[in-house]
């Protein structure tokens, strides 16, 4: 397939690293207390893609995770369910079964996650199988090798093809920003994914360090904001990897609130990809309710 866009379309504004990091650090000083904190943390739970992506993953492990996603804190009806459970394609069916009747979506990584170093046909077939198994969201990885060697058209084509293979499923495009290294690269990768029809831009696989950082997510939010203002098409952002504490989660939400605003403050348009974050958020929510910190053992380990 030949791509319809010339490299000129992928041109993006330059990014000043120091100023971007300064702005992210400035927003990180926001003080979120009391009701705003509880509201923010509940919002964060509802935006969470509870994730397990290990070689050790088994049906039992996935079922446990699904239980947690449905009702993170059974005695607190005000704490909402998570947005999705994110698994490898072979465990999609297990997750679909365990989540039947709930609002929790099933997301599957695909396209040779995490490296993406397989051929196009294998990638597309993997997507088709995951969708056929019932995944409603597909998290693909971009071809970083192609990107870093300047074959932007190839990256674009592949996203287009995966989008088509997704059918009705939502497509999240993982940029793996830790491998793109520069903010200029991240900004360009955003542009390519936006033009290719991504429903979500996602920072990382979680397998590369650094994963999600505040400046990178700020930059991605600016990209989807500008795209929306230019075209009217709204695209979501998913911060994934390395987000472990409630404080982190609130800092990301502040970025969303002050960069993109109200339209993005919902699970439909912003997600956290995390595994250990949920229990810290639950602990903070219980602390706000009771005034005391509970023991870690009071929260289910899933």
């Amino acid at each position, binding site marked *: 397939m030949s791509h319809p866009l010339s490299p000129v379309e992928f041109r993006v*504004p330059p990014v*000043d690293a120091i100023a971007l990091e300064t*702005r992210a650090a400035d927003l990180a000083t926001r*003080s979120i207390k009391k009701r*705003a904190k509880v509201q923010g943390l509940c919002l964060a739970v509802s935006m969470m893609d509870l994730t397990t992506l290990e070689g050790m993953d088994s049906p039992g492990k996935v079922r446990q995770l699904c239980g947690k996603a449905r009702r993170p804190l059974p005695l607190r009806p005000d704490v909402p369910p998570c947005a999705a459970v994110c698994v490898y394609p072979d465990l999609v069916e297990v997750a679909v079964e365990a989540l039947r009747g709930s609002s929790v979506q099933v997301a599957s990584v695909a396209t040779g996650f995490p490296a993406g170093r397989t051929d196009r046909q294998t990638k597309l077939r993997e997507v088709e199988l995951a969708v056929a198994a019932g995944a409603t969201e597909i998290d693909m990885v971009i071809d970083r090798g192609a990107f870093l060697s300047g074959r932007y058209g190839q990256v674009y084509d592949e996203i287009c093809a995966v989008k088509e293979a997704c059918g009705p499923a939502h497509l999240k495009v993982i940029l793996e920003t830790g491998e793109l290294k520069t903010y200029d690269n991240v900004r360009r990768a955003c542009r390519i994914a936006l033009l290719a029809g991504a429903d979500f831009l996602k920072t990382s696989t979680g397998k590369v360090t650094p994963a999600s950082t505040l400046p990178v997510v700020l930059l991605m939010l600016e990209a989807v904001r500008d795209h929306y*203002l230019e075209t009217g098409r709204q695209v979501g952002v998913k911060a994934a990897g390395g987000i472990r504490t409630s404080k982190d989660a609130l800092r990301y939400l502040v970025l969303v609130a002050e960069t993109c605003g*109200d*339209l993005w403050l919902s699970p439909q348009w912003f997600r956290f990809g995390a595994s250990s974050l949920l229990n810290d958020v639950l602990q903070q929510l219980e602390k706000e309710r009771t005034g005391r910190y509970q023991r870690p053992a009071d929260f289910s380990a899933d």
Partner: protein
Amino acid sequence: MAKHVEKAKVESAAPELQFGGVWKYEPAPESTDHFTIAPRYELFVGGQFVKPKSGEYFATIDPATEKPLSEVALAGDKDVDAAVKAGQKAFPAWKALSGEDRARFLFRIARILLERAREFACVETLDNGKPIKETRDVDVPLAAQHFFYHAGWADKLDLLFPGQRPEPLGVVGQVIPWNFPLLMAAWKIAPALAAGNTVVLKPAETSPLTALRLCEVFQQAGLPPGVVNVITGDGGTGAALVRHPGLAKVAFTGSTEVGKEIQRAVAGRNVELTLELGGKAAHLVFEDAALDQAVEGVVRGIFFNQGHVCCAGSRLLVQESVHELFVDKLRRRMSRIRVGNPMDKNTDMGAIHSKPQLQRIRELVAAGVDEGAVLHQAPCELPQKGFWFAPSMFTGVAMSHRIAREEIFGPVLSVLTFRTPEEAVEKANNTSYGLSAGIWTDKGARILWLAERMQAGVVWNNTFNRFDAASPFGGFKESGFGREGGRQGMRAYVRLRGGLLPG
């Protein structure tokens, strides 16, 4: 017909962002139970707090609420005289002290200031109206940095001026403004003491509290009596100080108008003078700039400290090709500036410092509207009590408008356009001031080309309103002369005895 209707529909549905409707931050006020403000402050002369011979006091208020905070002594001529005499008395011993010993005092002052940082930030915010975020993260740490930095020069003066012998001048009279009360005190006092001078400092009438608290730090640090004297008062006190025959040098930061008066007052006397005065700085935004970051810089340039900054970037010169886009970005960004209680940790912009200043801002903004520029104001709710002004931007500004020529000293940005680099330079320099400039471009060669041509003491590239004790600060043209900070700043506080070869 139908087509027209459809078009109108599309336009009204143009994508727009909304803020603050879904998730509202709760108030996050900084606590005030860790310090007290005394009901009355005296003058600090000869190492002691002393009652003014004038017998007079005046109130200082919180500009965010108009509530009185405290009353401070009004120094009359006799008080000024006593302060200068105390400085003269202390001078020989302070001058004779080794550089290392002077450094020790300065280091001690810096450390105590940092230990008491939280209290200083709060008092500064209450007395000045600027947000706690800024006093906590900028004013107080930078003030301490100036003491640390200049402590480092105290024992290295010979290295600063090779082949010459630097000597202190004597008693230095320093008059400082209300926009950075503690920071300006540190800028002035630290280099003067490092070089071996003694000081009589006159803080601004409307923001005297942190300078007086700094005197407590001097006492804690064991600074010898009379090395620094602080006299509070009004314009009359300042005038009496700069006219006092016992001074060897006058250093002033403030308005160009008062600066000219001071220059007249010291004319014909053997008195050194440095002036740091007004500004009307330009940002030059080129189409290849990192625009989102440039927006942040422009916002920081004009809305930092409510625009009460002599080097504020109050003129935005933007390349015509990105004018519309950039103004749109700015407008959206301005709507998210959180204006309100300065003590709230989430406040981005606090109160206008005083009623006269608010009147001055209103007058110039009215003139801008009257002259035909288009005013954009951030839609924010302003408190009923206190002095407030919404973040504002004018588009359609002509170079001849008052808002493009006069220093507003408030949160008001004037946007103009240019087509070529030459035109940008010409417009940027077309002002009677020359304190600072900001260049926004991704192109290295252009940065250097522009920086060479800017008639401004400080040229920031892809940043703005960044300060460092090691970096000299000062003006061209009516923005004054002399430099503060860095090696150049030290030069203003010594007399050089030439002819000595390095041994």
